[in-house]
Each structure stands twice: as structure tokens, then as C-alpha cells.
């Protein structure tokens, strides 16, 4: 009897809690999101101002002269940035959530360097229409490719920054997006998921640069069509297979391949003869080889990492499939594949492997590349790599958005978010074709991808065959929905 | 001379099993250690041959000396090397291996003179030679006991510790084992014989110790023990009187207390 009474009490407590919660829910659940600004925001303005009050207030007037009547909010001050070379400028604080540890550290670190160096160059050039941009160590978070750490990091800095300069990882960013939407937090993202073009997925906050995996895959397919049409005898129609990681990278690319293939149905191209989803940490190269070998495709689209690529190509060749053509994308390739371990594969790579990517490599000859290489060398950033390039390129669109917000005289988070939709042409200094954020995704998406072949003499092991190649399928595709739905 | 001095052993940090016992085995003699179940005989042997660790036991006081050198902090392997070898209670032969492999294991510390020692063992136990290649588990109880003793001899020990070699054997086999122990001793090995079969033990021993609940309660030359009335009554079952009454048991208990 006694125990039963206690249980009743426990259930009672639970019920009471439920009711209380429900009762207060009635008042505010409806209208909190849109109208109430989180106090964190207002608080943040005062806190970020606090440390800078020591700066002589007498020098304030020229600052206000430079930016006479601009609305500022979270993470923006009229006082100069700490250690700024432009004492007359205000300061825009940006946050970075990247991976300096964990599996993607080798990508995340140079990526962040690229961003830091980019903004330093902007500041060195006199700043951004009366403002400097600061990425301070306090606002730089190492998430280690872990969703929980990413989110905790976001919570740590969300009150201090006007926008993010980086939020690495598609899924991690998706996890933090509800909070970002709450905060109107704009961020460029170093992942090329086709969903980032759509406001109902990213709230119009994610700034994408370069084409996405899906359209990149279509260009890849178009390129294969073109290449095989010049073969003797003509290699069309052909069979193809897909081997890729699951998710935003491999999944999006695979979707693009299939869309392109469907467009060539009239010349006899069918469905993939084999599709192997390579789950990292679970699948083995042996399985992939076993899945592909019996169907002996003419072309294989590979969206894995470099190790899997080498295993697949070596395994298939050794087992007798020696005529296949391989198409990969940026992360599939690593110059180390040309190195010691698999040196025997070099002739095969040079002969059979092609890849698409969003931008040209490190060596391209544009004003942007030139400036980037100078910054890279000035900061002694080590071995040239694509992470640095991506970090640099990605920063142009945030620059354009901030410029637009300043022109609008509204540097509040809401103002920055609103400015995104008004940017008509991001100037990438030639590193990418100009990009507009005005219009439907179908109008604004970048459709061109760079096609490379393997060149063992080049520092990154690649040579450009076709810069910003836009194939017929990619050009004609009506981009009205993400190619891959990343559920929920 | 192998000596145990004032030895105290505790199991699992709390169970005091030996409460300061002392005994000695002069070179080339047979010493019998007698006592009821749970008296601490096996623990004494474990302490001497360094097996206490396995049973979570510890020497907390006293020492064990081999020719004056303390050995109670040494590992079991080291003690075997120093010439003290034990045949465990219940024979414990390696049932899955052949007779020869069992013997080879015995020669682990004394690999060089393995052939000579094996010859000696085969000479003592001709039966084992015949069955050298057969699986040890299929030997009879007596044969297994011989194998256990033979295995202990493979390290050519100076002192052989035998824990209940007569356990579960037919009287005829007990006789045989007894003779073999005498023979081993004659060849120069000191023997510490732990037995419940006191008659057998005392008939061949030079000296005898009687243990009760962790203590030595009697320590006399074997001949004297055989003649001792209490020993005859309680260990040899040879009472002068026909009737054994509970009162006499009480009398013994009293006496024992007095002895200690």
C-alpha cells in the first residue's frame, strides 16, 4: 500500500509539472519567436561595448562622422576593433565554428586560415566602408566535427558576433540552424549541398559560393558525354556506376548524376548499373570492388575519400576491369595519392581519373588567386591546399552582404540578414563567376564547374582541362528543389 | 636446511590462517606435517613454495629460510630454481597432455639435465616409461600420483614437498608411494610430507609436526609421536580403550590448549 501511495505522489508531481508548463505555454508560445528579441541580443551589445569603453571617448566624433546614422546591433561597435590599424573605423565581430581537431581538422584549419587572412587583407585595405572586421580567439570555436560541440560553441558566441565567418559541416549547421534563424545569424558554409540555395531550408542565412555537388555532378556527366563523343570509336552509349559516401556530399552528387543520366535517355543512357553507398567506418573497399566488378561499367562516378578511390581503382584494375573511366570531385582527390604507397597507380590515375570541383586549384591566374597566394606566403601557411582556397573564396559573399548592409545603414543582425537578398553581384576577383543572391535559386545558382585531370607534375596533382564548364544538362536543369532532402 | 620461523599468513587481508608456526626440514630427512582438515598444512606448503599470491594470501610475520637465506618474498619460479619443489594436493596433472609433456614441464627450470632427470623418474616409476606417449588424463589414480611426484622431481629438487600423496589411493598403492618416497629420500632429497594418513607418514618420517588451527601443537621425532597416546588416539585411531567417549575428546581439547 505504502509504495503505491508513493507512486501516486510521483505521478502527481509529474502531472502538476505538465500542467504548470502547459499553463504558461498558452501565453507566449504563439508570439515569442517573431516579436520578442532575445535579451541575449541586447545584453550582448552592452557587453561587447564594455571592454572598449577605455578607448578615449574624445575620438568618437570622427567615427560617427564616418558612419553618421547607421543602426547597429549585436556584435557591431562604433569603437575600433582591438589592435586595429584603422582607429577611425567601427568594428564588426565575426564568429568561426570550424574543426581544428577531429577527422576534418586537416581541412578545417587551413579553411579558417583562409578566412582570417582574407579579412585581414580587407582591414589592411582601409576596412569596409568605415568598419573593420575582427575574428577574435574568443569567437573562434573548435567543434571537432561533433554536433554537440558545434552547438555548445554556437551558444558560447551567439551573443557576441554580428555574423559567422564559417560554420563547418552540413549536418552540424543544420542542427544549429533553428538558433541561427532565431538570431538572424548569417554565415557562409564550406559545404556545397544543393539545399543551401533554398530559403525554406536555410532561412536565407547560409551564403553559398560556387556550384553545388548536384550541379557539379551534372557537369561531370556532361563532360563524360563530350569526352566519349570524341573517342574512336564513339563511346556512347555507355554504362556507369556510382560509388559514394552517403549524405550531403555523396548523396547530393549521386542525385545529380542520375538527373543528368535521365536527360540522356534518348541516346541510350540508362540507370546506373551499380550503385554502392560507401559508409565510412562500415563499408570496405572489397565490397565496393565486388559490387562493381561483375557489371563492368564504362564510367564510374566516385564521391569518396582518396583512400577509397585508390582502393577501388587498384582493386578493379587488378581484377581485370582495366578500361573504366573515373570521375570524382574535390574531396575524392588528394595529391598524396601520387606519393610513395600507391606509386604504381600513377599511370592509371593519369589515364583514367578526371574530377570536377567548384573552383580552380591553388595555382590559377586571377587577381583573387594572386592576392590569396600573397597572403598565404606572407603568413607562412605551409603546404598549398584546397582548404585554404575554399576559405578565401567563401569570404567574398559575406563581404558583399556586409557592404550591402552598410549601404542600407542597418548593421543589426536583422539588417544583415535582409541584405543577403539584395546582393546582386558578388565580385570574386575572378576566382568564381559573379554571383547574385537576388532571384529564385534557379536564377542565382552557379552552374559552372571546373574539370581537372591528374598531372603528377603539378603541386596539387591536378591540371585544369575546362574552367567553369557548363554542360547542356547543367545549363538546362530547372533548379527548383534540393536534389537531396536531408530529412526533417 | 629449510626452515619456517614464526610464520603468520593472512588470506584476503582478514583471515588469519597460520599463527606463527615454526618447523624445519634438515637436509636429507623426511619430515611429516600432520593435522586435521583446515589446520593450515596446505597453507604452510603454499607459503614455502611461493603460491600464496594466487590465493590472495600474504606472509604478515615470520620468515622462511633456505640455508639461512629468506625466500618468502621470492616468486614461485625462483623458489623452484633454488631447489624446492612441490607436488600439489589432488595430483593436478595436465590431463590433456601426454605423460612425457607433463614431465617436460617439470623440467622447465632445469632444462639442461632433462634427459638425466627423466631417466631417473622413469627408473623410479617404470610404469610411466611405458605410458610416456599416452594422454595423462587416462592414467589411473595411482599412476597420476606417480606422475605428479615424478614431475616434481624433474627439477632435481633438494627439498620435495608432497601434499597428501596418499589421498584417495588403495592401500596397496599407498604402500607403493610410501616406498617410493623412501627411495627418493635415500637418493638425497629432503621430503616434507603433508598427510592425513599419519600412520604411513610417521612410519617413514624422521620427525613429525602436528598442526591444529594454524598452530603447531606437537613437535617430536616420529618414533615418539607414534608412541604418544594422544596421537595414537586421535590421528592413528589406535586407542587402548575399546570405547571412545565424548568426554575423552574434551579431555584432548583441554590438553591441546595446555600444549599451546
Amino acid at each position, binding site marked *: 500500500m505504502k509504495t503505491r501511495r508513493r507512486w501516486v505522489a510521483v505521478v502527481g508531481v509529474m502531472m502538476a509539472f505538465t500542467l504548470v508548463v502547459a499553463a*504558461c505555454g498558452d501565453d507566449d508560445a504563439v508570439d515569442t519567436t517573431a516579436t520578442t528579441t532575445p535579451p541575449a541580443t541586447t545584453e550582448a551589445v552592452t557587453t561587447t561595448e564594455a571592454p572598449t569603453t577605455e578607448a578615449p571617448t574624445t575620438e568618437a566624433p570622427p567615427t560617427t562622422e564616418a558612419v553618421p546614422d547607421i543602426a547597429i546591433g549585436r556584435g557591431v561597435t562604433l569603437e575600433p576593433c582591438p589592435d586595429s590599424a584603422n582607429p577611425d573605423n567601427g568594428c564588426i565581430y565575426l564568429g568561426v565554428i570550424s574543426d581544428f581537431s577531429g577527422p576534418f581538422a586537416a581541412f578545417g584549419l587551413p579553411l579558417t586560415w583562409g578566412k582570417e587572412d582574407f579579412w585581414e587583407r580587407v582591414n589592411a585595405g582601409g576596412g569596409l566602408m568605415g568598419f573593420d572586421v575582427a575574428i577574435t580567439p574568443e569567437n573562434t570555436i573548435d567543434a571537432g566535427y561533433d554536433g*554537440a560541440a558545434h552547438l555548445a560553441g554556437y551558444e558560447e558566441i551567439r551573443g557576441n558576433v554580428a555574423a559567422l565567418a564559417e560554420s563547418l559541416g552540413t549536418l552540424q549547421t543544420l542542427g544549429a540552424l533553428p538558433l541561427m534563424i532565431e538570431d538572424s545569424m548569417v554565415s557562409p558554409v564550406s559545404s556545397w549541398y544543393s539545399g543551401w540555395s533554398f530559403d525554406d531550408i536555410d532561412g536565407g542565412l547560409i551564403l553559398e559560393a560556387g556550384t553545388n555537388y548536384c550541379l557539379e555532378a551534372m557537369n561531370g556527366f556532361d563532360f563524360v558525354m563530350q569526352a566519349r563523343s570524341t573517342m574512336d570509336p564513339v563511346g556512347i552509349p555507355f554504362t556507369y556506376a556510382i560509388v559514394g559516401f*552517403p549524405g550531403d556530399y555523396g548523396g547530393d552528387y549521386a542525385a545529380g548524376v542520375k538527373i543528368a543520366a535521365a536527360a540522356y535517355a534518348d541516346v541510350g543512357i540508362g540507370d546506373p548499373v551499380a550503385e554502392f553507398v560507401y559508409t565510412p567506418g562500415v563499408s570496405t573497399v572489397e565490397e565496393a570492388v565486388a559490387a562493381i566488378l561483375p557489371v563492368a561499367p564504362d564510367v564510374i562516378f566516385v564521391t569518396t575519400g582518396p583512400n577509397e578511390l585508390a582502393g577501388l581503382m587498384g582493386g578493379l584494375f587488378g581484377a581485370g576491369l582495366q578500361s573504366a573511366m573515373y570521375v570524382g570531385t574535390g574531396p575524392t582527390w588528394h595529391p598524396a595519392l601520387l606519393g610513395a604507397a600507391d606509386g604504381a597507380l600513377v599511370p592509371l590515375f593519369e589515364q583514367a581519373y578526371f574530377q570536377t570541383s567548384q573552383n580552380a586549384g591553388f595555382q590559377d591566374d586571377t587577381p583573387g588567386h594572386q592576392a590569396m597566394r600573397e597572403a598565404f606566403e606572407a603568413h607562412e601557411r605551409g603546404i598549398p591546399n584546397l582548404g585554404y582556397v575554399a576559405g578565401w573564396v567563401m569570404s567574398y559573399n559575406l563581404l558583399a552582404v556586409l557592404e550591402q548592409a552598410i549601404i542600407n545603414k542597418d548593421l543589426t543582425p536583422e539588417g544583415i540578414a535582409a541584405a543577403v537578398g539584395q546582393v546582386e553581384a558578388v565580385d570574386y576577383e575572378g576566382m568564381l563567376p559573379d554571383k547574385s543572391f537576388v532571384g529564385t535559386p534557379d536564377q542565382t545558382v552557379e552552374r559552372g564547374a571546373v574539370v581537372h585531370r591528374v598531372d603528377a607534375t603539378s603541386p596539387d596533382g591536378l591540371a585544369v582541362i575546362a574552367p567553369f564548364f557548363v554542360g547542356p544538362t547543367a545549363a538546362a536543369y530547372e533548379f527548383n528543389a534540393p536534389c537531396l*532532402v536531408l530529412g526533417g | 636446511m629449510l626452515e619456517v620461523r614464526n610464520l603468520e599468513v593472512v588470506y584476503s587481508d582478514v583471515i588469519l590462517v597460520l599463527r606463527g608456526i615454526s618447523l624445519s626440514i634438515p637436509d636429507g630427512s623426511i619430515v611429516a606435517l600432520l593435522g586435521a582438515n583446515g589446520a593450515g598444512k596446505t597453507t604452510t606448503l603454499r607459503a614455502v613454495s611461493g603460491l600464496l599470491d594466487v590465493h590472495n594470501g600474504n606472509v604478515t610475520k615470520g620468515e622462511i629460510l633456505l640455508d639461512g637465506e629468506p625466500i618468502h618474498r621470492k616468486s614461485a619460479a625462483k623458489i623452484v630454481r633454488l631447489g624446492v619443489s612441490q607436488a600439489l594436493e589432488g595430483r593436478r596433472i595436465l590431463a590433456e597432455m601426454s605423460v612425457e609433456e607433463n614431465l617436460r614441464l617439470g623440467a622447465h627450470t632445469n632444462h639442461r639435465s632433462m634427459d638425466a632427470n627423466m631417466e631417473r623418474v622413469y627408473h623410479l616409476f617404470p610404469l610411466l616409461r611405458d605410458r610416456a606417449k599416452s594422454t595423462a588424463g587416462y592414467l589411473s589414480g595411482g599412476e597420476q600420483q606417480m606422475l605428479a611426484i615424478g614431475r616434481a622431481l624433474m627439477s632435481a629438487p633438494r627439498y620435495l614437498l608432497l601434499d597428501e600423496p596418499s589421498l584417495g589411493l588403495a592401500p596397496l598403492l599407498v604402500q607403493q608411494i610410501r616406498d617410493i618416497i623412501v627411495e627418493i629420500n635415500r637418493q638425497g632429497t629432503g621430503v616434507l610430507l603433508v598427510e592425513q594418513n599419519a600412520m604411513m607418514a610417521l612410519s617413514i618420517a624422521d620427525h613429525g609436526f602436528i598442526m591444529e588451527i594454524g598452530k603447531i601443537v606437537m613437535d617430536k621425532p616420529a618414533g615418539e609421536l607414534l608412541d604418544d597416546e594422544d596421537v595414537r588416539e586421535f590421528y592413528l585411531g589406535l586407542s587402548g580403550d575399546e570405547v571412545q567417549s565424548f568426554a575423552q575428546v574434551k579431555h584432548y581439547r583441554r590438553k591441546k590448549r595446555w600444549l599451546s
Partner: protein
Amino acid sequence: MRNRPALIGDYRSDAVVFRSGVQRVWMGLLLVAAVFLTFGGSLGPIRLEGEWVVLAATAVFASIGAIGLNVVTGMAGQVSLGHAFFLGMGAFTAAVLGGVEGTAPALDPVTGELIQKVVLAGYQLDMLIWLPAAGLVAALAGFIVAPVATRLRGLYLAFVTLGLVFIGDHIFREAEYFTGGAFVGRAPAEMSLLGFRFDKPGEVFGVFLGKNQKLLLLGVVLLVVMGLAAKNLFRSKVGRAMAAVRDRDIAAEIMGIGLARTKTIAFVISSFYAGIAGALLYAVVGRLQPEGFGFALSIDYIAMILIGGVATVSGAIMGAFFLKMVLPKVVVWLAGLPLVDLVISPEVGRGVFDTHQFERILFGLLIIGFLIFEPLGLYGIWIRIRNYWKAWPFSY
């Protein structure tokens, strides 16, 4: 007796939920502290904010899962390496029942028109339904697995539960309609209790609370309820039967304790806790993926109860807080120290280990260290400190 007030002299006092009034006071203090830390501002001097509240909320929900593992492993002695599977069952059940449906454009095979096809199940039910359901579905999974588990003992059982994780991992990856698929995953359930949103910021009793502060508050309430329930279980007949099975299963059987029944109950209750924990944990992170429920997650929970203290509720909670809240902060702090940062550094290539690697190493070393030096875990250390001060200045 009068001279030894702490002596437990009868079964009645052995079986109470709180052994002493002090425990009750502590419990109350902790609750009050949790409320004050969450509300802050007008109520308390400090407010739990920023990443601390994320870490605290994660730790609170993980505590519930750890208590669950402590029921089956600590209490009933059945070492389960399969806790990740049950966490996953709860998490995905909650996400399916409480989450949003996902659609993708597809060609209708009949009409040939482009339609929106449902590719991800989501029913957007209330938390009142999905939270218990998550626990129950996980418990059901436990019930189905239990017959296999009760046949086996010792290490063999550990292996079966290990296998369960791998098979579960495969199922989670393949059941894309429910889980979103590998490296895609889905959003967690909407935390809406009768219209009150835990996953949106808003005012509670006139104080503005962020999403994670609300979640933390919910977690504390649930932890109290489920922690007390577990404490209650441990002192009940079933709890004593579990302890008997743990200490000597054959002896327990001879005493008339149904082995299969007791083990099954342990598995079911443990899975229920895991299910509840799994359902709520991912609301904090905002995303759940099939590959997150692997062997490593099981080890996390084993480490929690090991480091916290086996077979006690407070041990499980201590362990969860230690691993989820204290350890990450300690590593970051260490990495910031001069000289230490030459060994551990947040920058790749600078130190010998990066912080992430170092955290894993520390985690492994903690498992080893606690097993060698303090098998009772943090709870044991706490008891020792307490006893030291109780007896001070005497050694005992």
C-alpha cells in the same frame, strides 16, 4: 545502538529511499540550485548560460541513460555493451512520432506528374505521447533481446550485446524512412508539451528562458523523478533479486529467484531509461544520425557508470556530469596552459595531440585509472572524503 546513530540495524532502515536526513537536504538543495541557476536574474546571482547550459542539459539527459545502464549492469550485473542500441531506439522513436515529415519531389508512376512524396516519417505528436512511447519502444526492444541474454552469462553476454550494437547500427542506417539514413539523419522530435515549446525560447514565470535553459529545467525534473524511481527500485524486492543475481547467479537461483525473470526485468527497465534519454538528448544538439549510435556511444555510457560509481544512482549522475561537462572543459583549460599547449594544442600539428584526441586519451586513461585505483568510482571517492570528515580527527 544509541551511540551509533548511522548504524543500520533493521531491514526497514536499510530499505528507505534516503538513508539519512542529510541526503534529503542535499537533494532539496540541488533542486533549488538547479532552478536558481536556470532562471538566474531576478531569482539568483548567477545564471547558467551559453555553452554551460548546453553541457549541463546534455549531462542531465545522459544521466538518465546512465542510470538505466546502472540498473542492468551495476545492479543486475549483466554487462551490456548494447546501451547505444536502446538509446537509438528511443531517439528514433521520438523523432518519428514527434518529428516533422520530410518530403521530396518525385514522379508519380501513374500520372507522370511531379508530386511531393513522403521520404521521412514524422507525425508531430505531442511530447506527452512520444516521450513515454520512446521509453516503451526501447523497453520492448529490451524485452525482445532479453531471452537471448538470459541464456548467456558473463563475457558471452557482453558479446551478444556488442553484436546488437552493430546490427542495430545497420538497421538504423537502412531504415531511411524513419532515420533519414547514414550521414543524413533527421531533426529530433519537436519538444512541444501540450502547446508549451521546450525547443523555442520564451518566458516562463516572467523570466525569459532560452531553448536550452528550458530543456535543462525539463531534464532536471525528469532526472529527479527517474532517479528516485531507480533508487526506489534498488531497495525493492526486484532490486534485491537483481543484486542477488549479480553477486552469485546460481546461488540466487537456488534461493528461488527467477533468473530469467529478473534479468528480463533489468533489461526492460534499463532500456526504458535509455529510450527516454535517447529521446531527449538529441533535442539539445538538434540533429540525430544513425551512425551516432555505435560501439563508441556504448563505451561512453559504460565509462559514465564506471567513473561515477557502479550500482548507485548518484554515481551514474556524477559520471555523466563528469564526462559530459567537466572533462571537455578540463581539456580546453589544460590546452590553454603554457608548456602544456606544446603537447596538447587546439591547432593541428602544433602540439603532439589536438584537444579532441587528448580528450579521448584522457577518457581511456580515466577508465583504466578508475578500474585500477578506485573501482567504486567518483562515488567511492566521495564516500571516502565523507567518512574522513565524519571521523576527523581520527582515522577511523
